[in-house]
């Protein structure tokens, strides 16, 4: 077993602060006030002490017991009821790092997640079953052959290792993607639960120079995945210094049930000191209360329970406060990501994470629309803007998702990249300094004494300062809307590149030391 103690502290200390992705620094806009935060905090602590959580993993129960929690066997559920005192929770929160560094193949792509600095990073997720390809087709009006339009048509494809590689290459190229959570569920022949993890991480790392993150399907793959990471990061020390991979674990099944399988994985990952997202995804209206104060109190309790376990297992384990709260549609009880409540829940959780001093893993850019278009754009943009504005450090689900989390569409990812470019520009922090204000007054004087009274010439200085935004990157040149055509053309261009593929030498080394990989041709683009 590889134990990577002080992973984050070490990574942080060795890191040149200039050498990381700049993200977007924002001034957070709170939704809830301090009193409301304390109210929710108290509600969560009350929930953790009564009714407590139902834990299905015996080892976790013993960690909780040794840590000062009361444990009672629940014969009805074949589990244990664990009541976690507030002090145990707060000690755990205290012991989890407030600053987590996530590494990358390309050092300049590292991420610094500091709970007290609202530096926003956007990334991908979730693990989708459908890969939606876009083609452009020409249509002619039935009643007037002179009227024609070029419109997108869509084809659903199954997720494969090659399509995951394709997505990694695309997301590596898109400027606004800061990190990559595997977003295609690989369903090739030859993939089983025992070799899925190594294939997923290999496909992602093969074409991705940014941070790579995924869940773990099979605990027995953990050390193989770490070995793969070490080879790519060039040795154990380098992986410690530059943790190019990390894990997501949804160990709580809402409401308040710590499941056996994922809890076991969390314990093993925490023992190794690897960065880990403690995530929970309750659905308001079915597995959680629908009202804001009930939902947030519950998810907050669930995430705190998970964080507490990691710190009892290995104090100092770097964790992210992972929140994916969603509302139920009342007509189908499906997830309802386009709901305004989705934004309320998520922004509240971002504030709760900041209150505890734990970096926030949040959710935005996901909606209910099944294809790219107006609905998709509206749903995505509102959450991308609002959640980023709340100061979340690490925002997943932000690229290419459609039909809730069922579909990944590469063209949609390009559209999202353009949207997020605008979001970043909207959220740019104000830089109002005395010296620049005086310079502006002088500029106004100068222009007023000129014959044209135009400020255009002086814009160039502001462009250099980085305070002048670019236009929407996919806009067309003519009078017609050409966004889809431009997005398709951009995708085609990216697909004609080789991408930042790992060297053949490293690939050979991986094939020698990591078992279970599919044949090499499956990863060729």
């Amino acid at each position: 077993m590889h134990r990577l103690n002080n992973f984050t502290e070490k990574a942080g200390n060795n890191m040149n602060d200039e050498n990381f992705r700049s993200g977007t620094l924002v001034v957070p806009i709170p939704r809830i006030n301090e009193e409301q935060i304390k109210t929710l905090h108290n509600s969560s602590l009350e929930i953790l002490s009564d009714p407590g959580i139902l834990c299905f993993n015996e080892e976790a129960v013993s960690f909780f017991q040794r840590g000062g929690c009361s444990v009672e066997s629940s014969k009805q559920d074949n589990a244990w009821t664990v009541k976690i005192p507030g002090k145990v929770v707060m000690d755990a929160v205290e012991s989890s790092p407030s600053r987590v560094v996530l590494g990358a193949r390309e050092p300049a792509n590292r991420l610094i997640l500091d709970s007290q600095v609202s530096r926003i990073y956007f990334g991908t997720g979730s693990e989708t079953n459908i890969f939606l390809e876009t083609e452009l087709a020409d249509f002619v009006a039935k009643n007037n052959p002179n009227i024609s339009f070029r419109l997108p048509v869509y084809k659903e494809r199954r997720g494969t290792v090659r399509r995951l590689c394709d997505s990694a290459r695309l997301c590596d190229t898109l400027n606004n993607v800061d990190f990559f959570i595997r977003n295609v569920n690989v369903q090739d022949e030859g993939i089983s639960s025992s070799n899925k993890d190594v294939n997923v991480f290999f496909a992602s790392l093969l074409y991705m120079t940014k941070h790579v993150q995924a869940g773990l399907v099979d605990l027995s793959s953990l050390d193989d995945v770490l070995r793969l990471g070490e080879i790519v990061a060039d040795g154990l020390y380098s992986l410690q210094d530059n943790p190019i991979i990390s894990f997501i674990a949804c160990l709580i099944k809402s409401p308040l049930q710590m499941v056996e399988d994922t809890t076991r994985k969390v314990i093993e990952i925490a023992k190794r000191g690897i960065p880990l997202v403690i995530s929970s995804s309750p659905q308001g209206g079915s597995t959680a209360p629908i009202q804001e104060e009930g939902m947030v109190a519950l998810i907050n309790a669930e995430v705190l329970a998970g964080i507490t376990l990691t710190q009892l297992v290995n104090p100092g384990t770097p964790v992210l406060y992972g929140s994916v709260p969603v509302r139920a549609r009342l007509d189908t009880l499906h997830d309802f990501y386009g709901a305004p409540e989705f934004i309320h829940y998520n922004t509240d959780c971002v504030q709760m994470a900041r209150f505890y001093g734990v970096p926030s893993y949040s959710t935005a850019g996901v909606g209910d629309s099944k294809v790219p278009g107006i609905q998709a754009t509206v749903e995505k943009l509102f959450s991308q803007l609002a959640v980023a504005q709340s100061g979340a450090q690490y925002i997943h689900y932000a690229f290419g998702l459609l039909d809730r989390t069922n579909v990944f569409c590469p063209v949609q990812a390009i559209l999202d990249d353009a949207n997020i470019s605008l979001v970043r520009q909207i959220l740019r922090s104000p830089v109002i300094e005395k010296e620049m204000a005086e310079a502006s007054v002088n500029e106004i004087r100068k222009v007023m004494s000129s014959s044209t009274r135009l400020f255009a010439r002086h814009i160039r200085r502001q462009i250099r300062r980085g305070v002048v935004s670019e236009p929407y990157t996919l806009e067309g040149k003519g009078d017609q809307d050409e966004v889809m055509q431009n997005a398709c053309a951009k995708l085609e261009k990216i697909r004609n590149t080789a991408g930042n593929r790992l060297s053949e030498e490293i690939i050979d080394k991986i094939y020698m030391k990591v078992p279970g990989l599919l044949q090499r041709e499956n990863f060729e683009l």
Partner: protein
Amino acid sequence: MEEIIKEIKENVIMGRVDSSDEGFDGNMEGKPGVSELVRDTIKEDIPVKQVIDSLSEAMVVVGQKYDSGEYLIPDMLASAESVGAAMDILEPHLIDADVESKGVFVIATVKGDLHDIGKNIVATMLKGAGYEVKDIGTGINTEKIVEAIERYDAKFVGLSALLTTTMIEMQSVIELMESKGIRSKVKVLIGGAPVSSEFAKKIGADAYCKDAFHAIDTLKAMET
């Protein structure tokens, strides 16, 4: 002499009207700009034609940079403004130097309309392109526009309007020019958000120009 001509070209390309402009890198404040350099050419008796040629050559480079996407409108305007400033300094010396002007271009926003951003941009760009621009302002009534055309012996007049309620004034300018018998000597160009090629045709103007670049292209086409 070659050095100063080279510096003028470089400064036009950078759009540095004078020494107060900090240039592209932000560190050129205090160094001579186009205005100071052109004044030096007069002191040093450098032929005016040579200076004007250097301005034109520089503007060709600026145009190429704009076409390639390297430059944006503010860059073009800054360069054009530099050339305009240079032409103001050189103007008293043009006759002696036997330099042929491209002609006087009277420009105005018509009566009842105070909008002048578009008009100012067109004026700056035309000056940069070597036309002798007489900008007579905004909200100018028909009689004053025609009077200016006659006074300056203008070859061109540019009329601007932003309002549907004021664009009709353009027609009265053309009618007055006709009644005074000067219409055939002067090309009339119109511009502004509510006007169009159809409207230009309807009122008897020579051309509708959608922006400053279109105006320059239209004038070039009229020269040939």
